[in-house]
């Protein structure tokens, strides 16, 4: 029943023997200790467990770890680069896009995929885009603003790093 898999998570390759029935979210949280990916509903409804597999947002509570063998995964821990927040992280901070923060990792992972496919989404497109991610605190208004902040920031020409 066990199978050896190799998954690259946030740029680092991990090889492990896992049971076929091990859910990807448990692999990420329990095997690798990356607890930024949350479990809210465990029934593919809330989106707290959203990660990127080969750049696409996926609910890791509804994926077996073995299905991701050979894939590249990004979790919330891999989103900041060189100590710099990703535009979405900055947006959630600046626009108060979180209260308890439980939904935030999933919201951000989902939004990365959304903004990759549509760099300038309307408010309606943003709301449909996060329709599989539930937030029990904010009422979504500031989440929408946070994503708009990030879309705007990502569209700006990149400043060259200071020497």
């Amino acid at each position, binding site marked *: *029943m066990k*199978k050896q898999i190799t998954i690259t998570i946030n740029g680092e390759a991990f090889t492990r023997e896992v*049971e*076929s*029935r091990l*859910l990807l979210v448990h692999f990420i949280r329990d095997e690798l200790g990356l607890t930024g990916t949350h479990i809210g509903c*465990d*029934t*593919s*409804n809330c*989106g707290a467990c*959203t990660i990127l597999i080969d750049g*696409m*947002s*996926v*609910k890791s509570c*509804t*994926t*077996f770890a*073995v*299905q991701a*063998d050979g894939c590249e995964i990004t979790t919330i821990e891999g989103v900041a680069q060189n100590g710099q927040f990703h535009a979405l992280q900055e947006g959630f901070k600046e626009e108060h896009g979180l209260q308890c923060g439980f939904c935030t990792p999933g919201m951000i992972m*989902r939004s990365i*995929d*959304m903004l990759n*496919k549509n760099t300038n989404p309307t408010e309606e497109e943003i709301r*449909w*885009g996060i*329709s*599989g*991610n539930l937030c029990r605190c904010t009422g979504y208004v500031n989440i929408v603003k946070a994503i708009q902040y990030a879309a705007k920031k990502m569209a700006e020409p990149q400043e060259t790093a200071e020497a």
Partner: protein
Amino acid sequence: MIPESFNYHCPATIEEAIALASDHGDEAKYMSGGHSLIPMMKLRFATPAHVIDISRLEGLSYIKEEDGLLKIGGLTTEADLEYSELLAKKYPILIDVAKLIADPSVRNKATLGGNLAHGDSANDQPAVMLALRATIVATGPEGTGQASIDDFFHGFYMTALGPQDILTEIQIPVAGKGTGSAYHKIERKAGDYAASGVAVNLQIDGSGTCKEIGIGLTNVNPVPLRAQRSEDHLKGKKLTGDLILEAAKMAAEDCSPSADLRGSEAYKRSITRELTVRMINKALERAKANL
């Protein structure tokens, strides 16, 4: 929720997949996107001893027109449909439906083949495929065969597919001049299964006469339902408001919805009627723009 233990197989070719399924008989289950199967395994409604992951089989994910047919590979995801320029231009019903299925993360995994093979009239694609008069192509131990969508759905979770058959392609007649199509469903919240859903595909000629029409209904019948009497009522006629309303009433009468958390039987019949009117009108509008 933890599924029961199983053996995972990830075959590289369709022949290998079918051989594995044949070896393990009733104990095996194919998995493509896994977004219907895994939830059922987590609830232990499904306990296959062998899961055969077919999602990595090559060459089964495509959307193309060829030989007078729109051909869609069985492993094409709902997200692939949603972002297809060809579909947006010529088959808007497939964009309508893809955007209403679950949510974007589920659509990244869920496949069209899986949506149909699951054999659940709560899924949205069966009604759309009825409206589009699709043909289902599958490969199994005996080779490749086809079934008309009208012969495909046999009952709850039961289809014309044998346990070792892999749904490889969906074929739809190419949309000609004067063709228009539309789908919508009423849901309690974004991403919910339908309280009722109506799919319409029709073709009109220059004089506005309805040459072809297909109407499929979602989640208001034990099996996905073709609104046959409504289609017969409209085919060959000029589509007036009165005629459309009569046909919609027939659809509402002919389905048999069950009362549940999504609404009473009477409510579901009434939204089926209203959606039928709206979808015929929307398809008609699109058809006129396409004359």
